[in-house]
Each structure stands twice: as C-alpha cells, then as structure tokens.
C-alpha cells in the first residue's frame, strides 16, 4: 500500500490530482418537510429531525440547506446537514438571533421547507488513513456526515472539538459512538484542554489530512497549521448568506484564480493579481486551505 510517510511529495501530488474539488453542484430542490423530532441538546442548542426521504438520497458530507422560515418575512437560514439516514435528515443549530429562534420555535409535526442539498461538500474519497476533523462551536453540525464517510472507508478519525464551555460541547459522545477519537477543548477549561482547539491540534501528532468547520478565526488557524506542515486541509467556511443559491454574490471569499473552484471571471482593474471572489454557497462552502487568499 502506498503510504504518506514513504514519499510525502508524490503523495500530495497524487492527492491533489485525485481530489475532484469542483465536485459538481448537487441537484437541489425546494423540499417540503415535516418536523419528526425536536430536542434541546443543550441550552439554546436545537436538534431538529425532519422527514425528507428524497433529500437523504442526495445529501453528501458537507452539504447544507437553506431553511425557509415559516411565514417568510426574513431571509432563510443556512444550516449544515447534520444527519441523513433512512427517511430522516437533521439540522443542529444554536439559537443566536431572531431567525434561528424562529426556527427553534418549530414543533413536532410543523412543516419546514428546505432548499437543499446545497454546496460542494467535503471530498471524503481521498487516500488518507488518518484524518483530523476540527470543529468549533456550531461547526460540529457539518462534520458528522464526513466523519461517518471517513470511518466507513476505514480511516482513523480524530475529532478536535472546541467550544466555550463543557455544556457547549454538544454531541461529542455521538461522535465517539460513531468511532471517532475525541480531543476536546474549552475556553474555560470546564472540559478537556483549557484553550482553543487549534492549540490542542498543534500539540498532537499531525494527521494526513485535516477537515474543518467553525468560526473564521479557527479556520484561519487551521489553515496556517496545515500549510506549515504541508497537510491538505479542506475548510468549510462560514459567511453571511443572502440567497444561498448563487444569485446574490453576498457570500464570497478570495481564492486563487487557478483553483478548479474559481468562477471564470476575467481579472479586474482592482485586483491585478491571481485572486478571484468565489461564492461560498455555490463554489464552496468547502475550500482547500492553500487556495484561499483571505
């Protein structure tokens, strides 16, 4: 078997080539669903299970959904798809503002329309046998499906998971039950490492690849970590969305023009460089760390 440690250079070359970054956008739809279950997994953290059998078939790891608020009147909320199995998809989110509170007020039996699945998703088909998943806060919602996919093909998966407090480390046990090794960090030291999760990541043995989802400062730190060590990193970005389907150009990130994910745009007067703004909702949300110019 070809191993990373035998020849890292050629390993990465092959890895790059084999990574179908611009994974074709999924065929998404406006999916009417019904709430099957609702639980408050921690204070102000809601897990909503919805009945969506057709959606389950189309969801890949790292996809997200735009949840349309009942009654309209405010923009839909972009949420990572947490679970997808059988007839049920689930959404895990923090009550952070008016819009998430309105979603959180839904009850079992209520209708919820989703525009889904959206985004490119994580590429879980790489050859790496040892993957570090780094999640911060609500970013945990987007990494269960990739963790399951990686575990299913026999990879070792370590979950580096950081939150403000122990109470906010929601669903950690779920990941352990799936077969992930847990490495936890809290800002207040109430559980696991006392500090930010990227410090914990740097203290442990490096993995062959890193997947990450969380707040932008965490993703920047993961990106720096991975590039210093020449480890491929896929980052699922967080950005304020308008439409979520590529129509408004509200959620962009600068990436290198040579990226397979770069939208075909001519260079502008202003940049004069190799950078182009890609939409997080369509070209992303998952980007390769070394292609970002943020």
């Amino acid at each position, binding site marked *: 078997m070809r191993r990373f440690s035998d020849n890292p250079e050629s390993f990465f070359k092959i890895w790059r080539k084999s990574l179908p970054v611009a994974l074709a956008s999924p065929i998404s739809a406006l999916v009417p669903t019904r709430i099957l279950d609702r639980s408050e997994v921690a204070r102000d953290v809601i897990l909503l299970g919805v009945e969506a059998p057709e959606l389950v078939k189309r969801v890949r790891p790292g996809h997200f959904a735009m949840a349309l608020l009942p009654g309209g009147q405010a*923009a839909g909320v972009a949420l990572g798809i947490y679970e997808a199995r059988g007839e049920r998809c689930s959404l895990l989110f923090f009550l952070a503002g008016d819009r998430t509170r309105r979603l959180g007020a839904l009850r079992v039996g209520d209708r919820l329309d989703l525009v889904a699945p959206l985004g490119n998703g994580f590429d879980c088909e790489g050859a790496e046998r040892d993957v570090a998943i780094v999640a911060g806060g609500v970013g945990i919602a987007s990494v269960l499906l990739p963790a399951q996919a990686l575990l299913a093909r026999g990879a070792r998966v370590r979950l580096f998971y950081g939150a403000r407090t122990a109470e906010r480390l929601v669903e950690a046990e779920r990941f352990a039950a799936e077969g992930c090794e847990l490495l936890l960090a809290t800002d207040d030291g109430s559980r696991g490492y006392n500090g930010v999760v990227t410090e914990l990541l740097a203290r442990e043995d490096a993995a062959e690849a890193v997947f990450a989802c969380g707040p932008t400062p965490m993703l920047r730190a993961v990106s720096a970590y991975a590039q210093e060590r020449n480890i491929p990193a896929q980052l699922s970005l967080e950005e304020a969305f308008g439409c979520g389907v590529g129509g*408004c150009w509200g959620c962009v990130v600068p990436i290198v023009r040579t990226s397979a994910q770069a939208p075909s745009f001519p260079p502008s007067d202003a940049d004069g460089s190799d950078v182009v703004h890609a939409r997080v909702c369509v070209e992303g949300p998952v980007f390769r760390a070394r292609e970002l110019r943020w």
Partner: protein
Amino acid sequence: MVELSKFDLSARIGSLVLPYPTVALSGCYGSGAEFAPYVDLSRLGAVVLKSVTRRPRMGNSTPRIVHTPAGMLNAIGLQNPGIEWYLQHDVAKFAQTPCATIGSVAGFSVDDYAYVCERLAARSEIAAIELNISCPNVAHEGETFACDPELTARVVRAARATTDKPLIAKLSPNVTDIATIARSAVAAGADALAVVNTVRGMAIDIYQRKPRLGNVTGGLSGAAIRPIALLAVYEVARAVSVPIVGQGGIATASDALEFILAGASAVGVGTANFADPRAPMGILDGIVEYMTQQNVRRLRDLVGTANTGFANINQIEGDEG
C-alpha cells in the same frame, strides 16, 4: 395555483409588455437560472439581471450582507466580469430564460453608461435596460448619479442615444426630492422608472467595535424600507406619466397592491426572494385573488387608484386599446 388566464395581468414598460407585473430584482435572483430548480420562471414577468460595468469588478470585501430587524444591509460592490466578458460568455444563456430578461447597467461616468448600454442593448436576449444610477455601495459618501437631476439626465440622455429598447432609470431614495429626479430622467428619455434602490445604512458590532459590513456602509432593503419606497412611488407617480416599477420591501400580494394603487405598473421583488424563492409567484397569485374579490379584470385598472394626483399614460393608452 390560481387561474390566471381570465385576467389581464400585463404590465407595460415602454414598448415591452410583460405578461405579469412581478419582476425579480437585480442581484436578488441571479440570472433566473439559479432559481429555476425551485420555481416556474414562466410565471415571472421578468428578471432584472445583475448590473454589469465597463470593466470587471472584484466587488467589496466581506461581510457583504448583514441581516437586520425587518430587512438586511448589503454592500456587494457590483462584482461582475465586465461587459466584454459578459457578452461573450453569459448573455447567450439568457435566451433560455422562460421570462423576459432585463439587463442592468452601472458605471462611473456618463460615457461608461453609454458604452455598456449600447453593447448590451444590441443583444436580442435583452428585452430592456435598467440604468442602475443609484447603487449606494460604490459611490463616494453615497453620492450617486441619481442624487442629482442634471447627472441623472446626462446618463439617461447618453444611454437613450444608443438604443431604442425600453430604458428604466433606477432611482435612489437617498434624496430630498425624488420627484425632481424623476422628471429629469423622463425628460431625458427614460421609458420607465424603478422606484427605489436601497436606503443607505450601517450596522456596528459592539464587541469588535467595528462596522459589520466590509464596505462600512451598505444599502438597506426589506420590509424596513417599504413605507419609504411606497411614498417615493406615490410622489413619482404624481410627477411623471411613465410606468413605474415599484420596489422596496415587497414580500406579499398586499404589499405589492399598495405599490400598484400608489401608481406602480409593475412590482419588483428583491430581498423577499431570500426568504422564499417562490415569493414573486405567491405575490402574483395573491394579486389575482384580490382582483377576483374586487371584481377587477385588468390589473392596469388598479394602477394609481389610491393616488388622486396620478396621471399614468400607460393606463390611458391601455384604455384606448
């Protein structure tokens, strides 16, 4: 779905007659294709494309969007590939859009507008041209062409000289007297007016002690600006007699009808598409329900009926026909 065929829902914008009065606004519905998986675009009057400029533009840094109470701020900064690229790579695709596609032109000089308008209007895929003279996110301290009657006239006149296709001047609410700007645009040759663009605004993150938008200032849209936009339509409809595309926070049929009764011949739907891509179709259904209730067969018979000073030539022409 409501039976539409019994009603005349058409809306006239210069020589362009839209089958329905509902228009998806620039920068809010992509080219239509982005929303095609979720809606039936043939039930839309038109889609206004994202504004295009002479040269490619990267647009503003992020965050470009901030959700606010009853609306949102945006500061995209006219990201677009520039007119040459757009003509070569994008415009041909619009032929497949099942509704009319209205081009949108932005610029930084009178010459820019004329240059881009001439090239874009020459394309058969483009049914009409919106002159975006009111984008608040690329201007110096909010000064746009639409803030000055003379600059408005110069842009419209220059664009008018390049094409016979319907020209829609998009006006700014960030002015003292919008009626003066409207008169100026019409005198210079605008066939219709889009009333209004976003209202300037900002938001601050109190923990980071920094403005939330990358561009610092942005344009406020959504329900928060609806009464402001409605008054602008009301005043413009009393000042000029060209069709008005009323826009600003329209999310429901009732909102749309307020604009129509104030004097708008057509209604634009922008931010509401982010709450539900089906918003324009829901509005159309609701308008038909209202017409059924009110026993009105032609939409244009409603235009301006709540506005005593209204004299829309579109309605008069319609009555003759």
